[in-house]
């Protein structure tokens, strides 16, 4: 028995090192992938509710892909939850050729998809730009759930608050200061109702801050720990509640609703899990140019968002080429420009060639985007999905009687 294991281990090690040993082998097969993807159509299912993001895909990504790889990129506007449901039924019914090649996905939706075998992979290790420029440790987990190569990093986002510096002079950038500010300005602050993506992020940040930091929540879900700590977070939110917009009796149903309130002047502080959103809106003229952003000194969440390939994608080669392109330095640079999207790159800038590295540092994000050093200083990672669900459930129980 031992002998067999030893031999198996030997074979395993040899074959593994064989793969790692020659980087050329990886690229060689990718050249084939690019050839296979030539003159094909790639259908990209992504959230369609932002004209900036749509425009960036349509006016930059699609023409570039056409030029470089002769790939026709078709954007399919769709909510992640909807296309995950679609894939689920397709898997159950045994449909091997689907209608989507690439998905824009992360977090809860990724977990649901991976858990139920809806994704093709592992994939990221085969993409040259991933191997060359991405630090694999930074994309090991998606909201605490192991990625294992089934998702390809796309961009990075950090949670910021938005305000008009012409109206608010003293920025409430700690939770203590926020509580004082809210007490002095009742009815002028609120957050979207969990499980809205942004609202849920807000209460997660409060949770970290009120219970002594994020480190204790990294790794496996610890039920006793959560039970012990949830009261402190709920206490803060409960104290906040009667001074919120509409006396905390109702929360905006979505980020869009909160943004409308902010634009109309009904609330004075907004929030967004995209640090470039404010700069983008200023360029669009929807926010006054005095709008700025701040992060909580207690910790500001960051996360990575990804692309992934469904198990039944009809054009897997094309999808891989597109995912690889979106990961390229040029695409990531263009994406970072707040005139386009303002989304942060997932590449290790230090690994890039000097020329393009310079372009990244020189990119003027405008006054509304905080400098990278500030963002990194206060950045805290996301927690595992069970904590997230438990926290959302707790919030619902306390605030909506569910």
């Amino acid at each position, binding site marked *: 028995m031992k002998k067999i294991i030893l031999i198996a281990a030997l074979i395993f090690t040899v074959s593994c090192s064989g793969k790692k040993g020659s980087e050329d082998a990886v690229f060689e097969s990718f050249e084939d992938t690019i050839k296979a993807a030539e003159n094909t159509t790639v259908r990209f299912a992504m959230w369609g509710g932002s004209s900036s993001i749509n425009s960036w895909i349509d006016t930059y990504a699609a023409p570039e892909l056409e030029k470089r790889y002769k790939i026709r990129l078709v954007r399919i506007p769709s*909510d992640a*939850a*909807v296309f995950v*449901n679609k894939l*689920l039924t397709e898997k*159950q019914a045994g449909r091997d050729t689907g209608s989507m090649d690439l998905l824009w996905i992360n977090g*809860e939706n990724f*977990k*649901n998809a991976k*858990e*139920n*075998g809806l994704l093709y992979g592992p994939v990221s290790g085969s993409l040259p730009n991933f191997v060359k420029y991405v630090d694999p440790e930074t994309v090991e987990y998606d909201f605490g759930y192991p990625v294992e190569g089934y998702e390809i990093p796309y961009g990075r986002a950090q949670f910021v608050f938005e305000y008009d510096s012409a109206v608010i002079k003293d920025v409430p950038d700690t939770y203590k200061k926020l509580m004082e500010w809210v007490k002095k300005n009742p*009815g002028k602050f609120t957050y979207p*109702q969990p*499980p809205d993506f942004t609202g849920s992020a807000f209460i997660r940040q409060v949770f970290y801050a009120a219970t002594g930091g994020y480190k204790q929540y990294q790794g496996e879900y610890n039920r006793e720990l959560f039970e012990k700590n949830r009261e402190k977070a709920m206490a803060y939110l409960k104290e906040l509640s009667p001074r919120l917009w*509409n006396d905390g*009796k*109702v*929360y905006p*149903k*979505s980020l869009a*609703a909160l943004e*409308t*309130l902010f634009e*109309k*002047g*009904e609330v004075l502080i907004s929030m967004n899990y995209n640090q470039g959103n404010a700069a983008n809106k200023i360029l669009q003229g929807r926010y006054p140019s005095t709008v700025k952003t701040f992060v909580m000194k207690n910790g500001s969440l960051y996360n990575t968002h990804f692309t992934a390939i469904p198990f039944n994608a009809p054009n897997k080669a094309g999808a891989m080429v597109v995912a690889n392109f979106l990961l390229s330095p040029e695409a990531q640079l263009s994406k970072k420009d707040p005139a386009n999207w303002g989304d942060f790159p997932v590449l290790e800038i230090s690994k890039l060639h000097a020329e393009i590295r310079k372009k990244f540092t020189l990119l003027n994000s405008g006054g509304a985007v905080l400098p990278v050093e500030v963002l990194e200083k206060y950045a805290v990672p996301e927690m595992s999905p069970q904590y997230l*669900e438990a926290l959302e459930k707790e919030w619902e129980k306390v*605030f*909506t*009687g*569910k």
Partner: protein
Amino acid sequence: MNYSRIKILLYLLPLLIPFCVIFLSGIFLAVMQSMGIFVFSYTYPEYFFAYRELFSQGWFYHSLALTLFVSLSSSLISVIGGIYISYRIWKLPESLKKWGILTRIPLILPHITVGFIVILLFSRSGFFSSLSNFLGLTDSMESFPLILYSRLGIDIILAGIYKETPFAVIMIYAVLSRLDKRLIETALMLGAGSRQIFIRIILPHLVPVTGTVFIILFIYNIGSFEIPYVLGSSNPGMLSIRIFDYFFQKDLSMRPFAMAMLVVILIFSTLFIYLYSRLIAGVDIRDRKI
């Protein structure tokens, strides 16, 4: 005259096939999933766990009660509005009848848009609030009354009325236009006032279609979620939103709860339809000898 049942079945077949194959198969899966069967890769302890859990929670009954109240109010007012508007259009002189087409506008607006329009008009920073500020009635956002996001779903009812009255108008007007004008003329000749004509001749003529429209709107409202998606309060909140939440925003393993709630709506709706059909069975216009 009684036709042979086979012939009837044959005539109904083009309809029954899509109904059974598509619709009923969908319901079948929903019922199965509500019991924890066929839910992808997840397994559950016992069959009725979802129902057991739901029925033990207070919020479920609150949501259900609110949903029924909102649907009832919305449908009732829409139907009454439908009768009134149909009647007024019907009485318009031929040259002005074309204005009737205005009633179609809310029909073609998507539900969510109507919800947003209610927000844009009635929010504290919205159009009516600005108007009242302009007219000197209020001096700030806070002094404008809070109309949106009410616990009783008043804003949902408002949006629902706006969207559904035109539907009632279309259905009711179609029947009204078929009313034999000679009945009216005769009544006038015999000295009836327009009020009497309305109550004695027009209304009874409209009862069947009104009832049908009401039940259609009522049941549709129970399950509709687009308007509550942007309006209304979340505590207790409409049942359809809870369902949406469990269906799309929670972990997939919670799917049976969403399906259980949907099945509850199914049972309620079928019950209402059955009760209604029993009610109209007695007054079916086809059986009435005129």
